[in-house]
Structure formats: C-alpha cells, structure tokens
C-alpha cells in the first residue's frame, strides 16, 4: 500500500504539472514558419487551380495543394526552396510585364494562357534563363499533382477530394478477400 502524498510532495507535484501543461500549450501554439509569404501562397494557390481546376470536384487550391508544397519545402523539398523563391517572383514579374497585374489577379483563362507560354518557353526577355520557365513550371505542376493525388497526411488531398473523384473508398476497406465477379 502506497503512502498518500505528503503536503510537500503534493505542492511539488502540482507545481510540476502546472509547468508541464504550460510547456505543452506553448508547444501547441508553436507553428514552424511557413515557407511561403502570403503573396507567394496566393500565387501557388492560383497555380494549383490551374493544374487541377475546380469543377464539381474541388480544385488544387481547395484540396490544400499549397499547404502540401509549403510543408514539403520545409522537409524533403528544402532543396527546391530557392527555385520556388526565385521562380514565383519571376512568374509574377512575367505576369506584370505581359498582363499588367500579378498572376493571382488575372482572369482564369488569362492565367492559363500565361502558363502555356511559360511551358513553351515563350517568355519576355530578361526574366528567365533559357529553359528555366519551362523547367520551373513543370516542377510546380508535378508538385501540385503530388499534393492533389497523394496521401492527405502530407497536407494536400483535403477530405480525400481526389480519391473520391476516382471512386476509391477512403479509407481503404480492409479484408476484401472475395474477388468480385
């Protein structure tokens, strides 16, 4: 049989648990700094909606693709961070130069046309190195597809949007041992 806590022990335990709970709530508030600035994030969301446009199924933006990319740039895609910083700025510069406004403010079809130009490397002089526009757009488009179709654990594919679109049960039903037909 254990002795009940002495008063002194009780005070010590109370103090420790108060300190611990303060520590944990501080941890919960701590959010690592996002990779994107708010402007960059808006731009990436617009790009995500271009790669996977919304219709009766959510597009890239609503499926959390920008969040997916942001998280990866703080993780396994740290090596692409510089490419994003400079590439996103160049997309906006291209947009201002050719359409008079930042990319995210353009109409949807105007955005599409601009990305088609990037993909074909038809870009105004003095912004991109040869081939750079195409390479950067392909990188971003690929990351958008990963975020949209990959596991929601990485921040994209919110509410299993893409898997529902493809008719895949989510989560997978286990024990489907009977082969249909």
């Amino acid at each position: 049989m254990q002795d009940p806590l002495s008063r002194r022990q009780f005070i010590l335990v109370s103090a420790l648990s108060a300190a611990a709970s303060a520590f944990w709530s501080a941890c919960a508030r701590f959010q690592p700094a996002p990779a994107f600035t708010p402007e960059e994030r808006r731009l990436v969301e617009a790009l995500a909606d271009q790669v996977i446009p919304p219709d009766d199924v959510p597009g890239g933006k609503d499926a959390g693709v920008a969040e997916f990319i942001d998280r990866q740039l703080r993780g396994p895609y740290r090596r692409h961070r510089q490419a994003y910083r400079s590439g996103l700025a160049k997309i906006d510069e291209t947009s201002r130069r050719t359409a008079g406004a930042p990319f995210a403010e353009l109409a949807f079809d105007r955005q599409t046309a601009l990305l088609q130009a990037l993909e074909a490397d038809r870009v105004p002089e003095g912004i991109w190195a040869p081939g750079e526009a195409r390479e950067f757009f392909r990188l971003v488009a690929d990351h958008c597809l990963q975020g949209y179709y990959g596991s929601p654990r990485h921040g994209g594919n919110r509410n299993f949007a893409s898997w529902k679109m493809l008719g895949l049960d989510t989560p997978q039903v286990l024990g489907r041992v009977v082969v249909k037909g």
Partner: protein
Amino acid sequence: MPQGRVNAVVVGAGAAGGVVAKELATAGLSVVLLERGRWQTFDDHDHDELISQRTTVLGNAFGPDDERHRRVVRLGDRFQTVLPSEGAYGNNAGCVGGGTLSYGAMAWRFMEQDFRMRSIYGCPEGSTLEDWPITYHDLEPFYEKAEQEIGVAGDADANPFQAPRRKPYPMPPFAYNTEGRLLEASARRLGFHPFPLPMLRNSVPRDGRAACIHCRSCVGFACEVQAKCGTQNTVIPAAIRTGNCRVFTGCVAKEVLTDARGRATGVAYFDPRDRLQRQEADLVVISASATESARLLLNSKSRLFPAGLGNRYDWVGRNLQGHAYSGAYGLFEQETYDDVGAGATIGICDFNHGNPGIRGGAMLANEFIRLPYLFTNVRPPGSARWGRGHKEFQRKYYRRSVGVQGPIQEMPVFESRVEVDPVVKDHWGIPVARISGSRHPHDVEIGQFMAEKAELWLKETGAVQTWRRVAGRGVSGGQHQAGTCRMGNDPKTSVVDAHCRVHDVDNLYVVDGSVHVTNGGFNPVLTIMALGYWASSHIVKEQGLEARG
C-alpha cells in the same frame, strides 16, 4: 557490437543474404547478418503512395535515406550526384528483407534458354552476351526450395513454356481480377497461352501468416497483414530461431578485410553510432545487390588486391543490367478497375524466346494497380499534363485503363558499369558508387517488338485507344539490377565461379543478382533466392567449417 570470430558474416539481409544466413545457421554454423537498414513494418509508411518504393518523391520508405547516402550517375555528358529518392539513383531498398519487403512479389523461374543465351542467339556486336556456367537443371532443386520455403502461389501446369519442374507450387494460384479476365479471353483468341502469375504472396493462410486481403497498395509497400512472403518474415526469422544467427541492423559495410595470404578475414563496418567495427569470420558472403556488392569489392583494396577484391581482370562492376520495361497501355469504354489488389494477375511467356530477329524477349503481364499520382504519368502521347484536360482524363480513365508490359532481357554491355567515385563519399566517408554506360541498341529493338505484342493484346481486348511505351538506351540497373560480378569458369572473364565464390579468394562469396550472366526476361528475385540456396549448399559441403559458438 561485433561478436567474437564467427563462421560467416553475410553483408545484406535481402533476397539472397537472408537465404544464405538461414541455410548456414541451420547447418549449425554461426552467422552475423549485417544490414545497413532496419526492421520495417507497415505502420512506418501506411498506404502513402508518395513514399512508396515505386514513387519515392518524398523519400524511400524502406531506405536508404537521403541524408547519408549518395551515388554519382552519368547523365548525358556529365556525372551528377544523386539522392536515393531520385530515380537516377537506381535504388532497390535498404532494410531487413531488402526489396522483398515491398516488392510486387512475382515468383519467376528463368527458362532453360535464359542460361544459354550466347549459344542460342550468338553475341551481338558491342555486347558481352555469354552462357551461364550452370544450367537451369543445376538450379531447379533450389528454385523448388525457394518456392516451398518462402512460399509461392501459382498454377504449376498452366504455363506451357515453363522449364520442367518436379513439384507444384505450395499454394493455389490467385484468381484473375477484372483485367485478368478480360485479358485471358483475348489472349486465347490470339492463340497466346495465358496463366495466373506465380506470386511470393499467400493465397491461403500459411506459415503463421494471413492470406492476401487484396488491398490496392501492394507493390512498393510492406504488406499490412504479412501476406507477402519476403526474407524478412520467412528465412531470416528462421535463421534467428536456430540460435546461430545474429542480425546487426543499421550497420554499413566499409570493406572486406583480407590477410597477407589473400584470404578474407571479416568485414569492417560502421555500427549504428558510426563507430568503425570489425567482424571477423571464417568466410564472407556479400549479398548487397549488384550496385553495392560491386562497390564493396572495389572499396576493399589492399597490397595484394590493389584494384579491389575479385578485380584482377577489371570485371567487377561491369555488365550492369536491369530490365528495360516495355509494353503498352489501352483505354476502354467499360470499367476495368475493380480495386482488387495487387492488380497484376495474368501473364504470358509466348514471347520470351523464339522471336524472329530478336534475341530473347520477355514475359508480358498486366500491370499492378496504378495509384492516383502514378496514374498522372499514364497518358497517350500529346495529352494535356495539367488543366481541365488532365483532370478529365484522370476522372474518366483511372478506372478504364489497362497496362501490359514486360521486363526485356537486356544484352550485357561491358561499359555499362559500377565504379567507385574518386571524389564523392557518403556519410561514413566511404567512396560512393558511380554508375555509367547505357543499354545495348538491341534492347530497344526487343522493347519495340514486345510493345507491339502488348498493344496487339490490348486491342484484341477491346481497347478504344492504345499507345506503346518502349524503354530507351539510358543507364541500366535499378530495381532489378544485376550482372556486376559475373559468374563464369574463366577467371579472366568473370568474377565468381559457378558456386558464387570469388575466383582468387577461396573464402569470399558474392551471392545476389550481381552474379547473373544474363538477367532473364523475368523479375529476377526467385532466381536470386535460388542462387542463395545453391551457393549455401556448396558452402556447407565444401568449406569444411567447424561450428564456432
């Protein structure tokens, strides 16, 4: 911590290393099995496509990790340092079980002709095509042992082209899924001979493990119910149960040690805390896969072996092969997707040999389930890769497409090779593997031939649109890497003898795909396992080792 001197140290707990460890331990010999990776479970990765072994964009779930490992690969006209999660690395896996933890688990025996490629076809210019020094019949009992002990489901009577076999498979075959049923009917109409694919996967409960539950995340993943049979849940636990085998995980081999007489004395390795250790042994077995086994030999330099072990005639690392997968895709009006994994259920061997103007060929099989991100790459030429067109295609055809492809038996090329890089080193300061060269031009011709057959099959199945995919002449190796320590009778043109023993080091063996003279038109894992049994049988009989405690 290293043990005292043991009978054998085996480097690499993959398809062959696991078998060798178990066979030697069962024979009463003491074994240390060194593995750079760790034990893995399904929970480590879930059904996460983006870190599966097929789609490694966010990392390799089953190793090796991007932080500590590097390779140098010749891409175009320059050498480039690449990470394990990048395609050019040519990764297999780095964990207990190696590739067998997460593989698709096709359980092919090579055919008799696959061991006699030069005699049958003659060597094309620019190739080192050669016969194996052993025949299918030498290996047959060991194929059988692999099938029985590790576990294969299949129909032993269904493939008229298979080489002679004595025993049926230990488990009944898997049923065809929807794709399989569609393809079976059309194959019969075309005069092909379809059959259910043999699989290292439980079709019924066996060996204390469950039967397959047919989830969609099979190839590239650890099995959540342990229905897939790899070395990590069969022979390696059996080795441990003997009490004679210790598995050291997180241990990275640096070099094979030799004495003044040129005999192997053990292995120097880095333990999980990066401390250099030595494991002394009566004999050393290298089973680290074709790239890493060659690298380890080349990094084991000494006064007697200035160019690395087994490399007196510059053959270590040469003839790197893999499989130039080629085939076709077809789109259908009706639904072909039934969500019944693993997905690949049907195959044909009508075109492995005897093709006009073609040396060898490949088996053809329907594809494993294409997961949603991977499917974004399944597109006919000229399709939209993004935008509304992309989404429409994904939505319409994810459930209405079938892929058929096969692993082209590559023509070995001397300049397709693994070396050690003179500059780049890994986390432990060990020179990394440097991969260069390209596939033989004939591989592309074989690929075109096989892709035409695959397309023909899909059209007969009712595809409304088809397109071919033919592998190019890029760097070889990859998941089915092989050939870098060729088996042969002549020490001047091979690295190991017919029993996988390095020619000029009596107590050093290489046992894995490295020793393949040619790599078959099949997934090579069952052959690698069979070679594990074959070499072990020789070691137990011929090395005359006294058991050490």
